[in-house]
């Protein structure tokens, strides 16, 4: 029996889809059987980020309405045999699926997969409630911005009210040099407000933009810092203990920063 994990944030543009794609891919690299479910009906993106856009025939709405069998809607990844995508519908809206249907869908998927990762739409309305309906665990993604942290706080409150057990936090797009100069919220600042378990931190990196545009998740790149961060998080999801990435450079040079990251100092 697998785990159903929803990736959510409240605010848009903080990296829910990127996080879903990278964690899903990392788990597949660790030989887990993974399905990623895009619940952003009407604004689907996960297929693009994974580079699977041109393989879509059926989608989540077809699957829950019985227009096709569930297996027909699941797209097998082109790189990993054990990784699948259930894409959102693009021509319908969030009301095309109900919470009960999502619960039923998640129950079916977790029989077959080790990890069911649900990419939640931005906002706190129908789409959000659908996305969390069948989830047992939640990962909240935020960035070190006051607005994103405020929305994360709201989302954590809603998750607690919906009895999705103890949400865990990923802080995305950290820029160490700005934290050092006091121009960006630090990890501690964010944790003092949100007071939830920290699952991981991901540095800001141009490589993400390139990998997203190419449809190749950055976790597949051994040299990528955010890739390393996502691999660490995926290890933690498998129950392993991995120390947090050290993002504090001793000197401000890029190479000393790289060195300290890889030596684990």
């Amino acid at each position, binding site marked *: 029996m697998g785990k159903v994990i929803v990736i959510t944030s409240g605010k848009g543009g903080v990296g829910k889809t990127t996080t879903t794609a990278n964690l899903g891919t990392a788990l597949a690299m660790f030989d887990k059987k993974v399905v990623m479910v895009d619940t952003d009906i009407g604004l689907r993106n996960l297929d693009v980020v994974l580079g699977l856009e041109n393989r879509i025939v059926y989608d989540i709405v077809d699957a829950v309405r019985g227009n096709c069998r569930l297996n027909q809607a699941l797209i097998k990844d082109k790189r990993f045999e054990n990784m699948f995508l259930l894409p959102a519908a693009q021509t319908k809206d969030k009301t095309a699926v109900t919470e009960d249907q999502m619960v039923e869908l998640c129950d079916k998927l977790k029989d077959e997969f080790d990890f069911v990762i649900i990419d939640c739409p931005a906002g706190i309305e129908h789409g959000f409630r659908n996305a969390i309906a069948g989830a047992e665990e939640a990962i909240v993604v935020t960035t070190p911005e006051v607005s994103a942290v*405020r*929305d994360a706080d709201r989302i954590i409150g809603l998750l607690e009210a919906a009895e999705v057990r103890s949400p865990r936090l990923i802080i995305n797009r950290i820029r160490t040099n700005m934290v050092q100069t006091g121009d960006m919220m630090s990890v501690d600042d964010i944790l003092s407000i949100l007071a939830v378990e920290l699952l991981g931190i991901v540095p800001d990196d141009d490589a993400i933009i390139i990998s997203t545009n190419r449809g190749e998740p950055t976790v597949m790149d051994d040299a990528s810092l955010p890739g390393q961060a996502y691999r660490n998080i995926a290890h933690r999801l498998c129950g392993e203990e991995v120390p947090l990435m050290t993002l504090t450079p001793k000197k401000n040079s890029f190479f000393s920063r790289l060195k300290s990251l890889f030596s684990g100092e």
Partner: protein
Amino acid sequence: MEWPDRLTNLPTTMVNHTLRSGQSINSDGNVVVLGDVNPGAEVAAVGHIVVMGTLRGVVHAGSTGNEDATITALELIPTQLRIATHITRPPDGCSKDRSYRPETARIKDDEVIIEEYNTPK
């Protein structure tokens, strides 16, 4: 103003968790929050408000107009404080650094003042 005043005899609501953004408490008596009050959360009480944590949100003590109402927090860095009909906010450009010491807000001479929390004698 002396403790105990007549407001302290009002029924008290205990909130046993942190109030997060979007959550609110409205009480006919006093409110004690065992947790933080985060930015975007709101507490309104006819009587006193005590936050056993960090107060970062908006709170309104004496919400029906009682000027004896007070607001006490282990750490008082609110978005806005309201007591009876008075509304105050931290001055613009005021440091948002943490204070780590308990403080009480009350009305004195028709103004909201904030002072270090002192155990009632």
